[in-house]
């Protein structure tokens, strides 16, 4: 594998190992997404439209992602470790790529629980919803990983990350909800792919500036 891919793999393995060791982000995300869906059930009127239910699913997804992202650079921040990674002879965007991959992994695990729960509580899950979720995860993780590193340098991290993240997540929600509801989801899935590409490239190119001075 190319040197870059090796570094990304090394760093991603470390992120997943850290999570398995501390076991604080993943259980929280799983519990959060299911309890959010249950709360939504009570929040919705009995004859709620499909679109209302789908909309709430996507809100649950975005906030579950936020939960994971708030913890994304927790270890590096609390132990002042980012310098260690930035010092290494590694392309700094590999740190971002590894973190984004680990966020996608945690999100996917949370969705592996959320989608069946949604099918159980609300309505059957179509392939287009699953495709939209996968595509949205990529965009959310790419942007979120960069914003998490940015917020790590600020004083009020937990407060700042949602503010930075939500406006950027609006297109993902529009694409996601649209794909799940529209007769031909193709245009929405295509939009999500464009959204992923634009922001993944921008995040990949600008991460270096977020971690060096």
């Amino acid at each position, binding site marked *: 594998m190319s040197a870059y891919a090796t570094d990304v793999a090394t760093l991603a393995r470390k992120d997943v190992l*850290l999570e398995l*060791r501390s076991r604080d982000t993943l259980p929280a995300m799983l519990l959060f997404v299911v309890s959010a869906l249950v709360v939504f059930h009570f929040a919705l009127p009995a004859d709620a439209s499909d679109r209302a239910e789908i909309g709430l699913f996507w809100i649950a997804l975005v906030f579950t992602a936020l939960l994971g992202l708030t913890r994304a650079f927790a*270890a590096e921040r609390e132990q002042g470790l980012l310098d260690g990674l*930035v*010092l290494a002879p590694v392309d700094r965007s590999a740190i971002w790529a590894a973190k984004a991959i680990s966020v996608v992994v945690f999100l996917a695990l949370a969705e592996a629980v959320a989608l069946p729960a949604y099918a159980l509580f609300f309505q059957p899950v179509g392939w287009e919803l699953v495709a939209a979720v996968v595509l949205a995860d990529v965009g959310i993780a790419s942007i979120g990983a960069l914003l998490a590193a940015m917020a790590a340098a600020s004083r009020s991290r937990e407060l700042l990350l949602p503010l930075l993240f939500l406006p950027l997540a609006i297109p993902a929600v529009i694409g996601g909800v649209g794909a799940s509801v529209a007769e031909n989801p193709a245009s929405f899935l295509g939009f999500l792919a464009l959204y992923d590409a634009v922001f993944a490239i921008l995040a990949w190119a600008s991460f270096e500036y977020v971690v060096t001075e």
Partner: protein
Amino acid sequence: MIRGREIEKRFGDKRVLRGLDFDVPEGGFLLVTGPNGAGKTTLLRLLAGLAAPNAGELEVAVERAHVGFLAHEPLVYRELTALENLDLYGRLYRVPERRERTGMLLERFGLWEARNERAGTYSQGMLQRLALCRTFLHDPALLLLDEPFAALDDQGADLLQDELAGGRTVVVAAHDPARLATLATARLALA
């Protein structure tokens, strides 16, 4: 090896370093002294490439792969064991015969018995020794050490002193340079 001319570094409106000149030849030993907040750590971060000067010219004729940086923080993950931490850095620095070198360093710095314990369970002194293992893991040509003797007991300090004498280029920041006075080939006092 390192050349600095009129180096200046500002943090917001506070000027931390101003008009600094220094030269460190190959194998040289520069001792940087000064009270806390004088900018010693900032200077080391500039040399390590973690930050760039706002003005002036700085040349470090060594790539990141050959720089060893011992910071205030040990830069090791508390949730991972000593072995896992060194394995991570070993891969990132592409250290040849990673396992053998890791074992040798842990042995030398007296951490072999605790190699499978999480760094979070280590005492401050043990953490500092693990940080030293991390710093020397890739056999760096340039050593940047920030208050290296802090939190080290005598035995650890002796180990470090032997390592420093190994002919590498070294820049050390310390505010009580007792142990280093003999080794220093040049000094830089920051006000």
